[in-house]
């Protein structure tokens, strides 16, 4: 890798292993994610996709191997985890909004508590982000009064409020009713167009095809194949990849 | 209190072994503690079941009495109940009560009050649909209760019943105040005999713990096995 390319790499995963007791979930994963790239991770359930994502902000601790963010190895012992996590935002499958705060307060929480922003600055920032995700009018609503799609968009705004270098999306539409999926994917697409570095675990293949710069196929903890969406979806090199895509009855002709 | 603080502290191990000489004396106290706790538990369950069923079935006058009983015994200290039964009741009825009997009655009535609440909650927690299905099959109310509701309620009630036994073992210590020679009383006697109050109380505490700890592990097991979601 040339020096120019090396600067470009924001997240570098080397030989990542993860086991839960006897169960090995990730095996020797090597992955580079460049600035501005949108990387979509696909694979059957149990393949370790979410685990891999959660290793990137150390919500899971790798058993061995390393993860570097912007050149800093986050898997060493004395790393300052809260500081590391500011750089990478995460959106969860079950939203995990703070129920005792309004939407606005949820978005303000990170800047105020972690970045020590003043109340008025945080409020301004939060308002702007809620406008960006299309929820300006829901600012004072509590999560319980929002639909799933609305909650997830607030969750995205909350993560964006930290001004992260990269965003991690963990099956963020899997828990949504079908008609609400689109509004969330639209926000994600907008983000991608603006150049945000994104690592997305999802089953939404059309999103992957349209928005991803690179698709990674994970199966049983192994990184089987990766490449541009066109290649993966139409001319996958590995049998296993083709099998998986077939199982989804994914048909490009119907796109 | 004899001895300097230093002297007492150095002699603690020696003192505790001295206390252990009186092992049989304390043991007789333990036996009584266990006896009275079990009596209270068994009588309490009997009382509790009757009271619970009366309240669930809303039997006209009995319901009011039952509710008053439960409310009264839950809203007054056990000690006040025991003292009343030991000192006041004999005067009213003209018949004297031994401390053991008075203590047993007091603890049983006390146990009955909170056990009835456990039973009531357990029975009511079995879904409506169950009794409706049973009745739809043509079962009588009591058949429905016996064959369908109670068997389901019983498993949910096991953990809190276990906890109740632990509570009773601890509250049995109050019987010492009306001179029942259970563990606490024996400890008091031994303490004045040996002037080693601190050591005696420490040993007594460990003996109580030896009784309650296995019980609480048992309750944890019951919890895992029968009521994991609560």
């Amino acid at each position, binding site marked *: 890798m040339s020096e120019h390319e090396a600067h470009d790499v924001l997240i570098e995963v080397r030989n990542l292993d993860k086991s839960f007791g006897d169960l090995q979930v990730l095996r020797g994963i090597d992955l580079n994610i460049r600035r501005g790239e949108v990387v979509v991770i696909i694979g059957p359930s149990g393949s370790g996709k979410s685990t891999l994502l959660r290793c990137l902000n150390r919500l899971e601790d790798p058993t061995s191997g390393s993860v570097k963010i912007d050149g800093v190895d986050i898997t060493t012992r004395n790393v300052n985890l809260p500081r590391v996590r500011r750089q990478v935002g995460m959106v969860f499958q079950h939203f995990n909004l703070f129920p005792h705060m309004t939407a606005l307060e949820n978005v303000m929480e990170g800047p105020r*508590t972690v970045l020590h922003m003043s109340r008025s600055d945080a409020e301004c920032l939060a308002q702007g982000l809620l406008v960006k995700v299309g929820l300006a009018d829901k600012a004072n609503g509590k999560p319980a009064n929002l639909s799933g799609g609305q909650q997830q968009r607030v969750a995205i705004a909350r993560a964006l409020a930290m001004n992260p270098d990269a965003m991690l999306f963990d099956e963020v539409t899997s828990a949504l009713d079908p008609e609400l999926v689109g509004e969330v994917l639209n926000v994600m697409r907008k983000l991608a167009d603006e150049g945000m570095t994104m690592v997305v675990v999802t089953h939404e293949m059309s999103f992957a095809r349209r928005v991803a710069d690179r698709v990674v196929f994970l199966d049983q903890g192994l990184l089987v194949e990766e490449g541009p969406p066109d290649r993966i979806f139409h001319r996958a090199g590995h049998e296993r990849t083709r099998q998986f895509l077939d199982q989804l009855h994914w048909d490009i002709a119907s796109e | 209190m004899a001895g300097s603080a230093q002297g007492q502290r150095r002699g603690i191990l020696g003192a505790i072994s001295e206390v252990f000489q009186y092992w049989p004396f304390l043991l007789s106290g333990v036996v009584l503690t266990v006896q009275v706790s079990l009596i209270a538990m068994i009588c309490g369950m009997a009382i509790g079941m009757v009271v619970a069923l009366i309240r669930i079935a809303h039997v006209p006058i009995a319901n009011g009495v039952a509710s008053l009983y439960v409310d009264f015994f839950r809203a007054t200290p056990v000690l006040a109940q025991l003292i009343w039964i030991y000192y006041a009741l004999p005067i009213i009825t003209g018949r004297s009560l031994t401390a053991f009997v008075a203590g047993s009655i007091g603890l049983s009535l006390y146990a009955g009050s909170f056990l009835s609440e456990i039973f009531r909650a357990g029975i009511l927690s079995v879904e409506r649909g169950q009794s409706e299905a049973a009745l739809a099959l043509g079962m009588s109310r009591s058949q429905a209760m016996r064959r369908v509701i109670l068997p389901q309620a019983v498993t949910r009630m096991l953990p809190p019943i276990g906890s109740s036994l632990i509570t009773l073992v601890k509250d049995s210590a109050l019987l010492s105040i009306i001179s029942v020679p259970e563990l606490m009383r024996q400890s008091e006697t031994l303490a004045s005999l040996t002037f080693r109050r601190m050591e005696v109380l420490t040993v007594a*505490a460990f003996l109580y713990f030896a009784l309650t*700890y296995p019980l609480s592990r048992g309750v944890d097991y019951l919890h895992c096995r029968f009521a994991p979601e609560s």
Partner: protein
Amino acid sequence: MGYEWRFDVLEGNLEFLLGGLGLTIGLSVLSMIGSLILGLLLGIARLSPWRGMQFVTTIYSDFLRGTPLLVQLLWIYYSLPILTGVVFSPIASAAIALTFNLSAFVSEIFRAGIQSIGRGQREAALALGMTGWQTMTRVILPQAVRRVIPPLGSVWVSLFKDTALVSVIAVPELMYRGKVLSIETYRPVEIYTVVALIYFFVTFPQARAVDWLFERARVRS
């Protein structure tokens, strides 16, 4: 069976009894505050990843909940002066014993309340870059507080009744004054009945209020 109830024995003595009630209330409030603080710290400590801390707090909690309050009370009253060289008044010993005993129960309540907050909340807070402390104070505890209020209400009611025990070390609260009075007036029946009734009328509404708290929490979820 005609026992002649004569409540005239209360004239001039009722005030004395009610003064005891005042002390009962004061002692309860004091012990409750102490055990809330201590219990909260212990409850959080119980969840710490250090094995040692978990072990110590578990032993503390198990032991204090597994031995009678009476034993603890007497132990503190008689042993503390020996161990520390400081003589504590009966009231102070009572407050200390009650506080420690309750803190064991309170710590369990807080621990369960904190653990009942779904893991996702903690992860969301950590993902934002919050420290463990910030996560606890800004996200977990505010949600846990709601859930622990009914059980803490129960603890309060038990505390209120448990204060009767401290009469054995001559703290002049309600129960003790009842004893003193029944000896002085030779009328244990009326006196002890009134004592029981006073406890009842003061405690019953509170017990009902706690029932309501539990009901409200159940309906909410």
